[in-house]
């Protein structure tokens, strides 16, 4: 479906924020879901690019994406008033409970979809945020996380801004006090968060990524390893349809 672009602006050298007018998506989507965006101007780039929804407002939906290659670069050239060919909302997102003590742990561009989650969680839960970035050039959006939350802890791996070190080390110090933890970021980071939550026997939801094809669950390419439902061994579920959000106990990271 074609949607009007309200805004498509650079947040940094390689990160863009696009807002589209999409009342039906805005009304039905929930945190953790994604949109599948067709690459404009170049039909030889066949596949849609899956981008997490980062926020909604009334009738508009916002996505934030990093320029990774030619496809995302072409998407970044779309202007206000142009139309974007978008499928969505797709996938299974984060469950939003009530009256829980929650923590959000985000790494790098994994922070963006967690903003939408934070905005929904704060209505009825306490939310502590842990945001980690590689260096100060990568730091984005952490101010938005302050609104409505109990505490925001930000770190850069190299200490160029805010706290110095891996965000998971800071999270680990406080980790025993949460009912539910939500995480999105590089796989190594998710492994650490999973280890920490297992230690504390805390419920953890992770958002995963995998190269996609159709994005709607039919072609089976975006496989992610999960523990087998019956017996030992493993199975493959699919990030676009069974995820991107999974209960961490299900997935083999």
């Amino acid at each position, binding site marked *: 479906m074609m949607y009007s672009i309200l805004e498509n602006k650079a947040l940094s050298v390689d990160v863009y924020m696009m807002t589209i007018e999409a009342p039906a998506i805005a009304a039905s989507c929930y945190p953790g879901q994604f949109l599948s965006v067709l690459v404009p101007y170049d039909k030889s780039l*066949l*596949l849609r690019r899956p981008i997490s929804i980062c926020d909604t407002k009334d009738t508009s939906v916002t996505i934030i994406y990093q320029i990774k290659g030619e496809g995302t670069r072409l998407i970044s050239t779309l202007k206000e008033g142009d139309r974007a060919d978008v499928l969505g909302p797709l996938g299974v997102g984060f469950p939003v409970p009530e009256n829980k003590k929650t923590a959000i742990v985000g790494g790098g561009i994994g922070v963006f979809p967690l903003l939408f989650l934070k905005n929904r969680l704060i209505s009825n839960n306490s939310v502590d945020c842990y945001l980690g970035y590689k260096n100060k050039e990568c730091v984005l959006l952490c101010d938005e996380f302050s609104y409505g939350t109990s505490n925001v802890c930000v770190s850069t791996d190299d200490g160029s801004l805010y706290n110095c070190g891996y965000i998971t080390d800071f999270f680990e110090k406080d980790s025993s006090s949460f009912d539910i933890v939500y995480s999105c970021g590089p796989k190594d980071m998710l492994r650490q968060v999973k280890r920490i939550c297992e230690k504390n026997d805390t419920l953890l939801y992770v958002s995963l990524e995998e*190269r996609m094809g*159709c994005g*709607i669950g*039919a072609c*089976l*390419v975006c496989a992610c390893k999960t523990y087998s439902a019956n017996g030992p061994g493993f199975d493959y579920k699919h990030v676009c349809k069974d995820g991107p959000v999974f209960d961490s106990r299900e997935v083999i990271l």
Partner: protein
Amino acid sequence: MNLGVKLGELEFKNPVIAASGTFGFGREYEQYFDLNILGGISGKGITPKPRTGNPPPRIAETPSGILNSVGLQNPGLKRYIEEELLYLSQFDIINIANAAADTIDDYCMMVSVLSQEEAVDAIELNVSCPNVKTGCLAFGTDEKELDLLLSKVRRECKKPLIVKLTPNTQNIAKMAGICQDNGADAISAVNTFLGLAIDISTKRPVLKNNFGGLSGPCIKPIALRMISQIYSEVSIPIIAMGGISNHLDVIEYMIAGAALCMVGTANMRDPYAIPGIIGGLSDYCRDNKIDSISSFTGSLKLYQGDED
């Protein structure tokens, strides 16, 4: 203006079939369009036992194409019959069961069991998937193996038998001839071409399985040439596939010799691809006063010498 196509006793309402592997069993596309508009569906390839498939990444984008190495992840014959067939039987479309196996005995078992199912209209024998390490590749690329396999399968198969050929072979027309000699009711061609994509920053293949199957618009010229060669060799009907993205591609394949077409990779880019193609065929035939779309089949006039 008639889009209908007959293949033996099977009556397709139009020549467009959803290709195996790209369309699941249809469920995921139901929210995008009424599945009853399809001429037919070839479901995900089924194996005797469930298969988990290959480790990811299973897909790489290439210029006007994709490489895939799904590795035949599928629910297995038992669950296909108990769950998927029931779901598919509600639609007024030709339901083709795509079957793959490791050994001749297993192929025969699959075909024998599927022949008992009323909801199966035809069986497409997958002898061509390049992603399976054990045996599947051998049949479709080896004349003797294919001949032996088909001679046994034909006896067990009580449904129309379609053989899906791999293009990763020296002489696909010859393979088609072997299918005809063994009583196949139709050929479907082509499956994917074996390909490679490399991540230059890691010096590793993009696919965890290293090689994968290439599909999409980039293969159309080669697939089209193969269809033309197969058409010169056999008289049984051909179901063509290979990079079809619009109704003009369907007509091109039909002119080359196809009775029907399958559309696969195009669905991955646009879930509305097939309805667009069917609508396009309808408009084209109406605008060009084509009475019956079947009249396109095999109408290609190859140049013989110096004539105009």
